[in-house]
């Protein structure tokens, strides 16, 4: 019997779904523990996190733990795979755009006066990560933000850990970025696709069935706030250091892992009209929603799901 549990973590909704209801309590505990570890290592908003310490000492090598090292490596992988579009060097740009604290506090603050930030497409190449020595050197003048990849990486790690310890099929969703591990239920994992991960499960929209890998959705219509230059959103284009201007409002991708899926969704949003060809060239299955609501597909994404 499938069972699920949800709670707030990492500034979003964390959900674990298992194929055996008896494993739910243990799975929930494992997920909470994993996410707490990620928060301590990778949060940009906690002054006591390892990442904040490394950012504060930009220009100097700082000793870090293995989790932040792996998360940074994943972020560099994302930058490499997208030619710097999905980059971890946008901390300063996000702060200048107004996202300089947890999102609840950003909303509570109200209107923000935008400051100018410098583009940083190539800055990620200056990051010095030494996995053997366990050190990280953030480039001088750069603030790392792992928000583009750390949640997806946490979902992959947590799903694998839960499936490994409980032996049952596991789905982990962190704010709509989904990783699955273990043997899925006979009918697979049914996932509703929407602009916002917080819509009710029975809200209208397409649903798809996945059995492995990851499924992620990124959208420019959520996590928005008000500035003196109009509304801003959290997907920053490193070429302009400003919220991205894109023909797509929402992109969903199914890939071999949640990290790959999430990086692909962000990369697609930032690539604009080139996104379908880029996704298709990598064999990724994707659903792209234009601002006017029309839908386009890439790879083997089932167009038939739209009518469901």
């Amino acid at each position: 019997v499938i069972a699920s549990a949800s709670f707030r973590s990492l500034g979003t909704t964390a959900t674990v779904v298992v194929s055996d209801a008896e494993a739910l309590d243990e799975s929930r505990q494992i997920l909470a523990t994993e996410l707490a570890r990620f928060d301590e290592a990778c949060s940009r908003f906690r002054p006591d996190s390892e990442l904040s310490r490394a950012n504060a000492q930009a220009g100097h090598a700082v000793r870090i733990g293995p989790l932040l090292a792996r998360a940074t490596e994943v972020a560099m992988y994302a930058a490499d795979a997208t030619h710097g579009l999905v980059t971890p060097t946008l901390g300063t740009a996000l702060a200048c755009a107004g996202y300089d604290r947890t999102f609840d506090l950003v909303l509570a603050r109200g209107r923000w006066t935008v400051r100018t930030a410098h583009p940083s497409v190539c800055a990620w190449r200056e990051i010095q990560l030494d996995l053997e020595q366990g050190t990280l050197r953030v480039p001088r003048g750069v603030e790392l933000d792992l928000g583009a990849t750390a949640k997806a990486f946490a979902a992959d790690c947590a799903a694998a850990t839960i499936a490994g310890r409980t032996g049952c099929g596991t789905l982990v969703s962190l704010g709509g970025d989904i990783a699955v591990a273990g043997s899925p239920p006979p009918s697979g994992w049914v996932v509703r696709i929407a602009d916002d991960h917080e819509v009710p499960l029975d809200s209208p929209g397409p649903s798809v069935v996945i059995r492995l890998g990851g499924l992620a959705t990124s959208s420019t219509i959520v996590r928005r706030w008000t500035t003196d230059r109009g509304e801003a959103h959290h997907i920053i284009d490193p070429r302009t250091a400003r919220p991205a201007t894109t023909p797509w409002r929402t992109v969903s991708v199914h890939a071999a892992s949640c990290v790959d899926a999430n990086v692909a969704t962000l990369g697609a949003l930032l690539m604009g009209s080139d996104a379908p060809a880029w996704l298709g060239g990598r064999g990724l299955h994707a659903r792209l929603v234009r601002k006017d609501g029309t839908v386009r597909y890439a790879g083997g994404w089932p167009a038939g799901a739209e009518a469901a």
Partner: protein
Amino acid sequence: VDPDVRQAQLVRSVGILRTRRATFATVVAALLMTALLTVAAAASTHSKRVVTHVVRVKRRLAPVTAPAPPLVSLEGAASTPPSTQQSAAAPAPAPAPVTPVVVSGGS
């Protein structure tokens, strides 16, 4: 004066005059050549002030190289068992009456 002697004196005077002119021309040519060679030698041995732009290329070897493989589709997932890999290559449309377990959306 014997005309032959006069003729001989005239020839000698003309010869002396030609010799002097030739000598003078040779000396002038030698001086010019010396000056020319001196200038050339001086130009080749004295240092020139040359402005050179030195571009220092500092090759920074990153201790860690980001993983090479690009984003992969499910077909390329090495860690997935072959039995499930083919059937789950792409997401399938969900049967109409089935309730989803979770929503994938922006956050």
